[in-house]
């Protein structure tokens, strides 16, 4: 073992942070690039289901809030692309991988958002699940990723609350509104639980990621934390969790759920979800439609930046 490898192992062992210019195993670098770029793409693609409601928000306040949230998601995508770039991949390469289907993003964004109540369910459940995951990742071993998570968690704390506020307005509104809230919960509950990924026993990257402290807590552990927090929040709203087998285990003090429909999970990951094609097509179209802007910016910079002041 050379001195660089020894230094890397010591960083991991002592819970310190690996920095961009430190030596690291190639597999550590690649695993981080895969995970961080997937995380970045999720933030960016995640703007689409919410953007769908921007021009139909029910009030000016709701519109302002939604716009601020979407702007945050864009910012979070950019922080994360920056983090991945410190590992030696360019943003352009990452976007190309996304367009070619080589890089993934969270499957949750392949579900459509049918009603305004879905904006509530997305903030409450999808951001809620993301926050549980991201709080855990604040302790990830790669320094720039860890710092981005700290910043993102700080900014996202309003996302979940605004979602829950919408759920309250709907659940305590007219019978029709309450029905929409229940319908949104029905559709987003299981996909939100599956955001934490496969069960620990089936997770292919688990051991290595845990040993290198890229991941700090297992998928099942994080999922359980989310379930335990969320079930009482649903009860407050007077809504029913769409799982006939949901029950509280007094001994473990955890809520227990039915087995998930993993067939659907893998099917959506493989690209057959309701909106996979639409999301990527939209991203490609926006990227191509804006090509002239990038060209104009490059031409303008060429003209002005080299001028002697």
């Amino acid at each position: 073992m050379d001195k660089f490898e020894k230094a890397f192992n010591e960083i991991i062992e002592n819970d310190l942070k690996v920095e961009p210019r430190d030596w690291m195993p190639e597999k550590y670098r690649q695993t981080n690039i895969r995970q961080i770029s997937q995380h970045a793409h999720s933030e960016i693609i995640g703007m689409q289901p919410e953007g769908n409601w921007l021009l139909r928000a029910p009030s000016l306040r709701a519109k302002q809030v939604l716009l601020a949230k979407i702007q945050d998601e864009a910012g979070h995508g950019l922080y994360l692309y920056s983090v991945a770039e410190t590992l030696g991949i360019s943003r352009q390469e990452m976007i190309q991988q996304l367009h070619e289907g080589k890089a993934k993003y969270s499957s949750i964004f392949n579900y459509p958002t049918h009603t305004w109540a879905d904006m509530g369910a997305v903030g409450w459940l999808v951001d809620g699940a993301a926050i549980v995951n991201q709080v855990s990742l604040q302790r990830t071993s790669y320094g720039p990723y860890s710092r981005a998570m700290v910043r993102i968690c700080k900014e996202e704390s309003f996302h979940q609350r605004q979602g829950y506020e919408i759920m309250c307005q709907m659940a305590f509104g007219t019978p029709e509104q309450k029905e929409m809230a229940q319908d949104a919960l029905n559709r987003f509950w299981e996909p939100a639980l599956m955001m934490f990924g496969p069960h620990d026993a089936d997770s292919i990257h688990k051991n290595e990621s845990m040993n290198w402290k890229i991941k700090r807590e297992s998928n099942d552990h994080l999922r359980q934390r989310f379930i335990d927090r969320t079930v009482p929040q649903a009860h407050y709203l007077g809504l029913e969790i769409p799982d006939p087998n949901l029950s509280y285990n007094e001994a473990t003090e955890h809520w227990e759920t039915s087995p998930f429909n993993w067939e659907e999970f893998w099917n959506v990951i493989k690209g057959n979800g309701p909106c996979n094609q639409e999301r990527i097509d939209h991203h490609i179209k926006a990227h191509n439609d804006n090509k002239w802007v990038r060209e104009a910016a490059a031409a303008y910079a060429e003209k002005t930046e080299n001028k002697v002041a």
Partner: protein
Amino acid sequence: MESGDKVWEVFVQKKPGLPFKHAGNVHAYDKKMAIQNARDLYTRRSEGRALWVVPTEAIISVPLGDADAFFDPADDKAYRHATFYDVPDGVKHL
């Protein structure tokens, strides 16, 4: 990287009198775009009232392999610290 697109490092000063702190980086094609993107990305919640952007390529750092040799002249010079010196009992304001 696409032609013309550059990476700029961003430094934010939270309040007058405090040092500028590295916040992260942005992509931009020119100085003006860099500072505007930095504002939109790093000061959306009034995190600062002053910003610097510097092209990443303009930052010089010590090569990884040379770091030990580069910094070790400081390692054996304890006399540069105030704690190196004995202060007689009873003597104040030293």
